[in-house]
């Protein structure tokens, strides 16, 4: 194509200025950040310059542990002990299933699996009931929404504290807490996809004289099953990580082992817990993602 001779002198449309919303939003964000972080009545008093001092004044054992990393000999011995934990049965860091960490790890997986199964099973009918289609009445929908919003607004750690009070410390409290957490996650995500399903089969089921429950089961469930299964697996990943924290409030799992080392200021023990748990989380997450990919 031939360029017109006076192409350089042609007036192109000017780039429009940014909208007032964009400008205002950007300025607002900066002002908000300063107001909340500055050291005054409404701020948290965040001062980057004071950080090194605060770090120095914090727990000396922990800081010493961190400074150890700079010491080559210490690093070597640490790696040796870590390796010994897997190979030498006499090592104080033995990682058998019978050790403190081993038992905690197994219990964490058990808690996560049980809570995911029970929570997901309850979440399927609850998700259907949490939509206009499933509730089939605005009163019932409002009740269902209120219930599910309540379940969702309570964090898993608070659920754990509640259940520790109710059923005393141990894995059961953890299972119950994460069951509620699973319901919160799966119901929210699953009921959102129910709003987008093909309504044709529902009409067909109704036209065939099916009861409401039968219509939901035959026309809705097959359509949401892949999404629901994927969300349940995702909830399992979250539960595994959640189960680690719950030990701190006495609800069983690896968190109890971490709490044990933490309270003795044995930060090397804590680091082993973190390390083995990290490996477990990565393995489970990879496996879960691989399965979820095949679901859609």
């Amino acid at each position, binding site marked *: 194509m031939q360029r017109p001779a006076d192409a350089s002198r042609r007036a192109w449309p000017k780039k429009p200025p940014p909208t007032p919303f964009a400008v205002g939003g950007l300025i607002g964000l900066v002002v908000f950040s300063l107001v909340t972080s500055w050291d005054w009545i409404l701020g948290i008093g965040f001062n980057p310059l004071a950080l090194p001092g605060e770090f120095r004044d914090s727990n000396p054992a922990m800081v010493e542990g961190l400074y150890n990393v700079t010491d080559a000999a210490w690093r070597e011995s640490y790696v040796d002990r870590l390796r010994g934990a897997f190979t030498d049965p006499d090592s104080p860091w033995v990682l058998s299933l019978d050790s403190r960490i081993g038992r905690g790890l197994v219990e964490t997986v058990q808690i996560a699996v049980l809570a995911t199964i029970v929570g997901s099973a309850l979440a399927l009918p609850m998700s259907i009931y949490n939509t206009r289609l499933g509730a089939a009445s605005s009163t019932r929908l409002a009740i269902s929404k209120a219930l599910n919003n309540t379940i969702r607004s309570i964090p898993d750690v608070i659920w754990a504290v509640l259940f520790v009070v109710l059923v005393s410390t141990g894995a059961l409290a953890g299972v119950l807490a994460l069951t509620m957490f699973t319901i919160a996650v799966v119901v929210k995500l699953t009921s959102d996809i129910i709003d987008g399903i*093909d309504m*044709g*089969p529902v*009409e*067909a*089921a*109704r*036209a*065939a*004289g*099916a*009861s409401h*429950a*039968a*219509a939901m*089961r*035959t*026309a809705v469930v*097959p*359509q949401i*099953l*892949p999404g629901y299964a994927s969300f349940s697996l995702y909830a399992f990943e979250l539960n595994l990580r959640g189960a680690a924290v719950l030990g701190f409030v006495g609800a069983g799992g690896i968190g109890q082992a971490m709490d044990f080392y933490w309270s003795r200021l044995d930060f090397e023990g804590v680091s082993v817990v973190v390390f083995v748990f990290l490996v477990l989380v990565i393995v489970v997450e990879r496996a879960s993602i691989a399965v979820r990919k095949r679901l859609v």
Partner: protein
Amino acid sequence: MITFDKASVTYPGGVRALKDLSLTVGDGEFVVIVGLSGAGKSTMIRAVNGLVPLTSGSVTVNDWSVPELGRRQMRDLRAEVGMIFQAFNLVKRTTVLNNVLMGRLHRVPLWRSLLGAYAAGDRELAMQCLELVEIVEKAYVRASNLSGGQQQRVGIARALAQEPKVILADEPVASLDPPTSHVVMKYLQRINRELGITTLVNLHFLDLARMYADRVIGLREGELVFDGPGSDADESVFEDIYGRSLTADDVLEGQAQL
């Protein structure tokens, strides 16, 4: 027998889809309802099984007075009235057999439908219905893997699985190509002839209507403008029903030539 008596439907928003419709369809008749889109064809068909409630007047199906039915009785009525849809309305993610078994839901106990554990008798009947539309070899194939014509035959089998006295077909061939349309229409005709099931079909192709209908009912803007045997429904009748002269779009074969 289906009787409309001054049946009217006004949708929320004020659209009057059906205006004082009065007519009777006898047992075993094959009736084709024609009219432009928006003429009230779908509304008329859905009034028969209560999917669209009447604003005034009445519809009587066999001994059921549709506007007066409670929830439970409405389900009993719908069990007797099979329905076939323009978009097939199959659950695409599940098997053909499971789709046909949806036609048995009225008779199946809730625990069986919830578990998907249908009784052998229901499965047998579903297979027989698939056999009738000659697609039984696809029983365990996912519905999404079938062609449009095959999906509509599954839709017919699902309606047949209800062992219905009446079949309603809402634009059953509107999503299909011309040869497939004829296949589906022939199945509907055969079911009507051999099983004696009263059949109401919505169509907007006049040649299909004339070819298959024992009786043609013409609707325009919710009003009955023609009611007579298919042989009487010539082009002037259709021009009256459509309120304009005919074009190639109004005939299936004409569309095929485009």
